């Protein structure tokens, strides 16, 4: 496997191999972090932290699991840490926008047809809905919907079982069907 060969070279101190690994996985890790933390700057920092952690642990690398699974696991943990830090510092997030937010499920406007929402509004609504999910449900959904990972890889990345992943996705979709009702034709 390409990743395995490259990581074995990285373990021996080959910087070119490390660069190749970064270029192979950068986009998917950055995308996952972006969808998790919600802004480009934080996503880039977290993504860099992922690869720094990989680099620091290069001497103990063992080709037992897929490298991408390992990277996803680090990315999820570091993204969660970033979100928790942000909440502690009380930076503005969608959770604090309250009733000024364009979408309130209890408002009569929530019955507006999908076409009435502009693209920017839809993105905001979806982001808020995802942010409102419990962490594990959100993680499972992001890995399934956007990274298109099969259930066994999601389970490996999250350190859980396939049946747990199935339950998490079921509950996440059940919640989102209600909160995103206006966007579902």
């Amino acid at each position, binding site marked *: 496997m390409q990743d395995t060969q490259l990581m074995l070279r990285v373990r021996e101190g080959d910087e070119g191999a490390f*660069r190749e690994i*970064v*270029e192979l996985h*950068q*986009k998917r890790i*950055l*995308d996952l*972090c*972006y*969808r998790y933390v919600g802004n*480009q700057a934080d*996503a*880039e920092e977290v*993504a*860099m932290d992922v*690869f*720094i952690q990989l*680099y620091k642990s290069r001497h103990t690398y063992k080709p037992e699991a897929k490298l991408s699974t390992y990277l996803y696991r680090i990315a999820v943990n570091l993204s969660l840490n970033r979100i928790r830090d942000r909440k502690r510092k009380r930076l503005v997030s969608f959770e604090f926008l309250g009733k000024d937010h364009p979408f309130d499920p209890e408002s009569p406007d929530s019955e507006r047809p999908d076409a009435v929402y502009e*693209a920017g509004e*839809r*993105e905001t609504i*979806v*982001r808020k809905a*995802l942010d409102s999910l419990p962490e594990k449900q959100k993680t499972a959904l992001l890995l*399934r*919907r*956007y990274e298109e990972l*099969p*259930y066994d890889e999601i389970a490996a990345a999250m350190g859980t079982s396939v049946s747990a992943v*199935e339950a998490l*996705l*079921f509950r996440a*979709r059940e919640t*989102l*069907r209600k909160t*995103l009702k206006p*966007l*579902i*034709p």
Partner: protein
Amino acid sequence: MKCRDVEKMLSAYSDGESPSETKALIDSHVQSCESCRRLLEETRALSKALDVLPAAKASPFFYTRLKSRIQAEERIQRTPWTERLLIPVSAAAIALLGFWLGTVAGGNGDAAKQENSSLNAAASTSYLDTFDSVPSASFGDVYFALAGQE
């Protein structure tokens, strides 16, 4: 299959993750059950609605910045721990010294104030007139006259 059971399996079914036997049962149920068929359509429509969340923008200098961060961290790791502690420890020592000096200076001012108030207290008792002579024709005058005769 009952709708209650099918509903729980529709999420995995829509992801193509149902075992083949289960998939066949759900296929058959959905064909004849409008409620479950609608639920399946909503699940697929939900997946489509999530399309709106964009991917991150490309980061052209990502590796360059990553490399700089790694090199900076390695430099810090190579610096002996004694040097790494030097600046914060020095700053703390200077702060403590400043605090101590301030305390001492403030304490000297208090001592001066105390001495001054003692002098004032001493000055205020001068009304006692200790060395004035005894008034004439007073008991003191007679006493001293008698004492002088003995």
